[in-house]
């Protein structure tokens, strides 16, 4: 209980004008990146990463949280207006929202998307805050063999959950793990895979990998697809004209969607967020499918269902709260965005774990506050003030946009450590990740393999050394056994789902 009180007391830091500026700035950046097709909130936070060397940790975390929440919400903007999801998690919103847009109810659809995002974001954040002490106690219960099994579970889920080829996800994750072993060993003062060079003895930093994987590879992908023209909106098209008062959803429509739809979707979103690697897309899809199944009007789905929009958007914003749980308690990112946020924590010397709540509450609580304020205040405010202008976001020339991103990415990778080697590494990883993406390899397993690989190895070797090298310790230890059984159950369930969808 005291932990919860401390968290709410920590919100007071947000009263500082400088922090508020970062919060609002982050929200606007997240809205822009989330709305623009081809850009994501992950990219926004990846570009922010080098700046965290120059700013305090509290504004950095506040900004990351607001970018995350904004990015999840703003994908619905272009999804509804021009049928191009700004974020993968808005695919279902594109299906329903754009259908409503064509019927002349575009503003209404955006209003329902915003309402779902507000409710999901608030519930997800409150669940994060109120369940955090329980998660913290649970984290203390997990011993060294259990930590290995938990990370193994996380990597297995990420590899098997990927919609593409499992072998390619495995290869990507292994590639990340192998990159992470370059440098000094996790337990002994031994250089590994350095080819006798001093520079590789220092290891590979997380930042050039993130910049290369998310920013530079995206630029190369966009360069390859350059002949694809973005949909242009005729300024005289009446469908494109949206009025502010039309954004407010009608009470009759909200009653028809029903409180249970919102609550159930929020719970699905939060729970999905806790699962490593699942992300907003899965949260939105599962919630949408469940809403379709339970709806009293299933025939409206696919033709402009407000219930479908509410379910998808509530879930993907509730996911934001859930994704922070494994990241903060175990250092296991819930999705790609929290993987990069974990990078921000590590760069600023913060170690994930239960001690984070005990010792660093003054740094973490403002981040929770940022999630809450972004969901409760900034989403409706942004929609009402800027809603009629959202459509113009996609009119920004992409040549201008991607050139700017290239400069921010490269100069950012330099200023963090003043190292040209880091810049070069970012370019190398950008090329590698572009080729991987081109051939259907997912980048998320690569990134998570890189982040989790050292801990996986460390806990494995420490567990064996505690039991004189006997691997039975992973079975005899109850927490380890639980996670190994969970791994088997999830892998079985995911493979069965994949087989039935292929049939």
């Amino acid at each position, binding site marked *: 209980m005291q932990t919860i009180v401390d968290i709410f007391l920590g919100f007071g830091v947000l009263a500082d004008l400088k922090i508020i500026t970062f919060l609002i700035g982050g929200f606007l950046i997240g809205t822009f990146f989330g709305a623009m097709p081809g850009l994501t909130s992950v990219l926004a936070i990846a570009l922010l990463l080098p700046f965290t060397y*120059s700013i305090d940790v509290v504004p950095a975390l506040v900004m990351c949280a607001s970018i995350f929440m904004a990015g999840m919400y703003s994908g619905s903007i272009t999804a509804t207006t021009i049928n191009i999801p700004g974020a993968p998690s808005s695919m279902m919103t594109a299906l329903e929202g754009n259908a409503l847009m064509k019927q002349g109810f575009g503003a209404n659809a955006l209003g329902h998307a915003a309402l779902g995002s507000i409710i999901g974001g608030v519930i997800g954040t409150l669940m994060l805050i109120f369940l955090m002490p329980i998660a913290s106690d649970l984290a203390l219960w997990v011993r060294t063999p259990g930590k290995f099994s938990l990370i193994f579970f996380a990597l297995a889920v990420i590899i098997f959950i990927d919609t593409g*080829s499992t072998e390619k996800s495995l290869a990507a994750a292994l*590639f990340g793990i192998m990159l992470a072993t370059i440098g000094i060993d996790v337990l002994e003062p*031994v250089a590994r895979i350095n080819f006798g060079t001093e520079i590789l003895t220092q290891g590979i930093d997380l930042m050039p990998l993130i910049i290369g994987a998310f920013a530079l590879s995206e630029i190369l992908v966009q360069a390859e697809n350059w002949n694809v023209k973005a949909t242009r909106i005729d300024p005289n098209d009446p469908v494109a004209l949206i009025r502010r008062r039309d954004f407010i959803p009608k009470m009759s429509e909200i009653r028809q969607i029903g409180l249970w739809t919102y609550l159930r979707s929020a719970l699905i979103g939060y729970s999905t967020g806790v699962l490593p690697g699942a992300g907003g897309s899965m949260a939105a899809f599962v919630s949408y499918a469940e809403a379709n199944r339970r709806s009293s009007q299933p025939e409206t789905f696919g033709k402009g269902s407000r219930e479908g929009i509410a379910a998808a958007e509530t879930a993907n914003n509730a996911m934001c709260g859930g994704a922070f749980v494994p990241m903060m308690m175990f250092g296991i990112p819930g999705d790609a965005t929290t993987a990069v946020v974990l990078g921000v924590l590590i760069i600023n010397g913060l170690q994930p774990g239960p001690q984070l709540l005990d010792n660093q509450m003054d740094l973490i609580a403002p981040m929770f506050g940022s999630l809450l304020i972004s969901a409760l205040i900034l989403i409706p405010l942004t929609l009402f003030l800027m809603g009629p202008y959202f459509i113009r976001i996609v009119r920004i020339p992409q040549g201008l946009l991607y050139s700017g991103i290239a400069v921010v990415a490269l100069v950012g990778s330099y200023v963090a450590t003043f190292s040209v080697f880091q810049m070069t590494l970012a370019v190398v990883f950008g090329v590698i990740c572009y080729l991987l993406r081109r051939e259907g390899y997912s980048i998320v397993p690569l990134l998570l393999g890189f982040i989790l690989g050292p801990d996986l190895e460390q806990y494995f070797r420490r567990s064996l050394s505690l039991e004189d*090298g006997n691997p039975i310790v992973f079975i005899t230890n109850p927490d380890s056994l639980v996670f190994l059984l969970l791994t088997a159950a999830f892998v079985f369930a995911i493979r069965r789902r994949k087989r039935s969808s292929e049939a």
Partner: protein
Amino acid sequence: MTQPRSKFLFGLSPVPIGLAIFTTLYLWQAFYIRSSFGGGQLVGPKFLPIVAALMMYGAIATIVIRQIRDKSDARFNLQGMARPAKVVLVTLLYVAAFPFIGYALSTFPYVLVLYFIFEFEAKRPIRRIGFAALTTAVFYLLYAVIFGIRLPGFEVPF
């Protein structure tokens, strides 16, 4: 849409080949790892590298076999890679020049060339130059003025 089989690498993707080369070099280096506690331990600093490398070989073999068997799979081709290759080349030149000729002198031409590659303001070269200068200035403002970061200036290499 199924793409025609390319003559490059018989249509096979170069990614598994690249991964195999990397894994072989990696494994070669892994055998040189020596524990600081002497021999005798099975699970030491070289354990995970060797296991990861062997698993990677297995994954690569599965991917290649699947690719050869699945004739309907889209084949690797070089189509569309010209523009990304240009971006990579100009980016590498930018990275090489950045510490020596400084932020402004390297970033302005870099941005200008990127605009050219992405066909931004293709019919208005004066505006293109103007935007390149503006972009360079805006990011200088962001890094050097707002965040107070020292960006490299022109350095005489001798």
